[in-house]
């Protein structure tokens, strides 16, 4: 179920150019806020743009932002977490301090600060999300690495003469990556929501680039005129969140060694 939704999302993002029925940027002020019709499947927005096409293109942004941000934070968290867990004590202390400092900052406040500093754009959003979520992954990896470091099999590897690089990548990584991938797939909808949230606040992707957040924002703004914008912006968000959450749960089941033991 989750897999199907995610696949549909990926297809729609990749094939946005073919799937969209209109130019998502083209305005027709006189055609504003139309109800869904054969011409405009999800109606039009306050500037007369085709909402369906904007939703499709918005999915591309959502996916691009979330996949990039999640994979970057995953890699960053993995490296920093393993460094903290396996490296010298002072480095661990330092990294934990940094992780805590970043985590203690509410993401939105942090995003506000970064956006003020760098200006709203896709790279800014990705940077914000990456910086804000590296500690999430980093902490998990660190804890796992720390506990792995003391396990007998790691000691056994060391006793055989294995160096730190080999131990980290050949033995600790495979044990850490599973839960991390699950977390990542669960994080994707969170990231999409953050992106949408920032766009909703006007701090995200710049208009007129369509994103679900900005469609939702428009919808909110004109909810008293037409309900379709909110539905069009909100529904894909809900579905995607569901999809990735289901996928994450499926992944968790797949990765759980207790369930595929025999």
């Amino acid at each position, binding site marked *: 179920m989750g897999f199907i939704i995610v696949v549909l999302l990926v297809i729609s993002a990749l094939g946005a150019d073919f799937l969209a029925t209109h130019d998502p940027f083209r*305005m027709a002020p006189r055609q504003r806020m139309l109800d869904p019709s054969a011409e405009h499947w999800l109606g039009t927005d306050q500037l007369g743009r085709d909402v369906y096409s904007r939703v499709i293109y918005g999915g591309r942004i959502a996916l691009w932002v979330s996949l990039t941000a999640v994979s970057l934070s995953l890699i960053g968290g993995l490296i920093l977490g393993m460094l903290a867990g396996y490296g010298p004590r002072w480095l661990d202390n330092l990294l934990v301090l940094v992780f805590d400092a970043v985590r203690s900052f509410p993401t939105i406040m942090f995003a506000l600060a970064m956006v003020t500093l760098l200006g709203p754009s896709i790279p800014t959003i990705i940077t914000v999300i990456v910086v804000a979520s590296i500690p999430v992954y980093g902490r998990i990896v660190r804890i796992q690495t720390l506990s792995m470091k003391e396990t007998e099999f790691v000691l056994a590897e060391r006793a055989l003469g294995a160096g730190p690089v080999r131990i980290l990548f050949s033995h600790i990584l495979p044990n850490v990556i599973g839960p991390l991938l699950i977390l990542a797939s669960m994080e994707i909808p969170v990231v999409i929501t953050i992106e949408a949230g920032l766009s909703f*606040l*006007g701090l995200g992707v710049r*208009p007129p680039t369509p994103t679900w957040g900005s469609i939702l924002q428009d919808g909110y703004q004109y909810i008293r005129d037409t309900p379709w914008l909110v539905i069009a912006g909100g529904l894909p968000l809900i579905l995607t969140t569901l999809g990735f959450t289901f996928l994450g749960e499926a992944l968790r089941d797949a990765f759980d060694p207790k369930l595929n033991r025999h």
Partner: protein
Amino acid sequence: MAFDAFSRRNFLKTAAGAGLVATIPGTEVVAQGGLKILKSRCDQAIETIDPGWRLGTVDDNIMRSVWQGLISVVPGESWNWEKQLATEVVQETPTRIRFEMKKGVMWSGGFGEITAEDVKFSYERIANPDNKMAYRTDWEKLDRVEITGTHSGIIHLKAPFMPLWLSTLPAGSGLVLPKKAMESKGITKITTDPLAYSGPYRIKTMEPRRLIVLERNPDWKGERPAYDEIHYIVVLDANAAEIAYEAGELDMTHLPIASVARLQKKMPAKSKLVVKPSLAYWWLGMQMEDGPFKDIRVRQAVQYGLDVDMVLDAAFFGVATRSTGIIAPGLIGHRPKNQIEKPDVAKAKQLLAAAGFPNGFKTDIGVRNSAEFVNAAQAVAASLANIGIQADVRTFDTGAQKALAGDKGGKWKEMGLHIVRFSMQPDPSWATAWFVTEQIGEWNWERFSNPEFDKLHQSLTSELDEKKRDEGYRRMQDLMEASGAYVFLTHGVNALVHRDTVAPALSPDAQRQFWNRFKPA
């Protein structure tokens, strides 16, 4: 709109005559079922009610309720004023205004009688350049206030200053502050505590981000206000405000333009819609000192290329009409038409090519983070795309946008285009003040600098001849347009919806609320 009567002659006439309205004793409004309460929406948090530092109409509404000026704007269809603290205000010469004050009007809190000392204190503190107050231009021509008696004095100007009667004395900068109260408490900048009251209301509750409750000032000797309490409820979001209105939580609220179109089709029950042309002005500005817009041909290309009607249609839902400058119809200096009236894409492309941008370029368009601005920006971007200019929309909080555009370190270079709305007082100098060379780094985001413009702005405030003023301000707007840095968009409208049980008292542009004159209908 009945604005033709608003001439210098009328002013002088009114000034010489007695302020009749203010002296008529009020008819008692009997409170039914307890207190009579008026609930109005406040669309931003209150930061200061100091006249020298006020930020917008909302602070202005509160200020005028807790204090009085010598004279005050009168609610109604046309811009007129009446006497408040003054019994007489006479412009004896172009630089000399004599006033007599009522006797026995007391400050609350035991700070004694309101005297000419207070007047002198209040006006000179704004005029004093050392205080660097935001509204110092209102009193920039003030020489001094001479005290001739406890209740009389003379305002001496360095040069004739026509905006005095329109946007200084009857407006916020003309309010009289409690000198003794401020000095005894060592306060130089008032935040949200008026210290002592002279107006019809006093503050009962002040929660700047939530709710301001005004109650009757027991010391108020003027006409008794019909409402016992004014609840000024902070609702930042327009949608929420509309819902609150429909739910009965508000008796009135200003509306975004999008709602006007909808309400015109379908009004809520027992409500009235007020739509008045605004004095404010919107324009598309080009920062002309750096980047592609340094070249006047590029700026002209934008002037020719932008389909203003389309932008207005998109962003203002067809409710607002195109403006011809920064001075609204009915005011001195209003320009009958723009120099470039119709878009000419071919010419725009030609100009761009000549400037070395045959394929256009990328730039940013900065706007405030609210729906009208973002819509306008998107519409502008769409229109400019037709001539090859790719404009990315950047949204800001008001403060952030000014901080960037006014940055001394050169950050202003980041922004090529911006769409701005400035609010306006009924004197043309109030519009031109922000575009002088001196304002570069402050509000002059286009970094427009024209010696003739600067000179005209200086001289016209002292110009007594109304016709010369009119011509001068038109010329100034011509200069602005000729610089290429401006595309004038609209004045917009002010719209509000109120219960039909309330008879509101509003300024002619429906912007300001005069709560003590509101009546149950």
